[in-house]
């Protein structure tokens, strides 16, 4: 049953091409996090709002983002919107899908962080003569940052891994896409995907390690 001969040389020759793909992967992940974090703040505020008309769509977004497969979310951005005549390129669809997913998860992270800080902290700031916004910025925000930092970096790793779903919408410039193309040309499936897996692993580990280091430097309390 084992008559497969490994041919690693071919895979290693393709390494520069794959690393270029990894850069695209990182680019999508970082952009999706920036967009996701922006929308996460908006969603978190909307979900705490008194107005049903703000709460309902925000809740729907969070529910769908967290409780349906990320693959479907990316599919919807590409093929789903396509049925309405809105055509997103594979890059844009992948970015939109992951950003949508990130925003859903992160809004809950941010909301939880906000809740974890007692109102008395603001009161203490106000009683020292700070304005509401000033007290929020100087006292609440830094504490929220600490609480949500590692969960946010976790989501970053998750975003990096989610980019591999781009192959399903024809994305061919990121690490997964490049690997898939190489595989299609050579049929050295195991070698190429094993090498890609190692690259994903190294990136994910590096991000988490750097985050822990940064957290240790930033949060000394």
């Amino acid at each position: 049953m084992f008559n497969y001969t490994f041919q690693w040389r071919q895979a290693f020759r393709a390494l520069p091409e794959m690393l270029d793909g990894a850069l695209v992967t990182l680019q999508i992940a970082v952009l999706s996090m920036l967009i996701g974090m922006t929308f996460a703040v908006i969603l978190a505020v909307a979900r705490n709002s008194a107005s049903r008309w703000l709460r309902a769509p925000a809740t729907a977004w969070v529910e769908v983002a967290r409780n349906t497969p990320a693959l479907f979310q990316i599919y919807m951005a590409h093929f789903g919107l396509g049925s309405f005549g809105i055509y997103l390129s594979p890059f844009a669809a992948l970015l939109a899908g992951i950003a949508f997913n990130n925003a859903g998860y992160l809004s809950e992270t941010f909301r939880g962080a906000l809740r974890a800080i007692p109102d008395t902290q603001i009161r203490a700031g106000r009683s020292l003569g700070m304005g509401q916004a000033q007290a929020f910025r100087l006292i609440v925000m830094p504490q929220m940052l600490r609480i949500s930092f590692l969960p946010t970096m976790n989501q970053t790793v998750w975003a990096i891994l989610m980019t591999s779903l781009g192959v399903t919408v024809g994305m061919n410039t990121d690490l997964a896409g490049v690997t898939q193309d190489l595989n299609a040309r050579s049929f050295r499936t195991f070698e190429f995907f094993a090498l890609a897996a190692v690259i994903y692993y190294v990136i994910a580990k590096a991000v988490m390690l750097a985050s822990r280091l940064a957290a240790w430097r930033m949060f000394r309390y």
Partner: protein
Amino acid sequence: MIEIENVHKSFGALEVLKGIDLTVEKGEVVSVIGGSGSGKSTLLTCINGLEPINTGRIVVDGTEVHAASTDLNRLRRKIGIVFQQFNAFPHLTVLENVTLALRKVLGKSRGEAEEIAARQLGHVGLGDKLKVYPGRLSGGQQQRMAIARALAMSPDYILFDEVTSALDPQLVGEVLDTLKLLAEEGMTMICVTHEMNFARDVSHRVAFFHKGVMAEIGAPDQIFGAPERPETREFLSNVR
């Protein structure tokens, strides 16, 4: 001078202050005693405008606290408050807890703020804890830090809201000693407290609150020695 005139305050249907009249002169130490739910803590948060009032007025040095035109942020610089739950800022060191408002509210330079903060922290016995985070401090130390934080703003008045109630019994003494020191230095203080010995020894006047009303006010000797109202007598016989 703090002038409180016929102040009524409700939380929803519950009226917690039912027409309070009280004037506190500069340099005076007034202790407020009474059962829980008698409205004494609420009065403090009304004085510095953290809570709105329903009717009546509170005037601090000629400025009406709840007037729409009053800049509360500015007014609060002269009215310090220390809470039962110390409300230390956990993300800042002891020194930074004190310098934050000095720099960001009063606009002092870092150097000047740190000098003031170090002096105040030394004053409350925390001179060796400047670089420590509040999480490493005992409750009594955190509360003394909160007192230094309020003092650093050089307020004209300080309100103390049951500042020893959340402390372990063995830590109460160090905080009360700090309060006594301030009283001796002539700080104007309103102390809501359950520490009857402190109220008797330190205050110029003691007010007894009962069900949202100031039932009785007088010199400590009179309130503790010869209370006029039956509610006061009953309360004092229960706490002793």
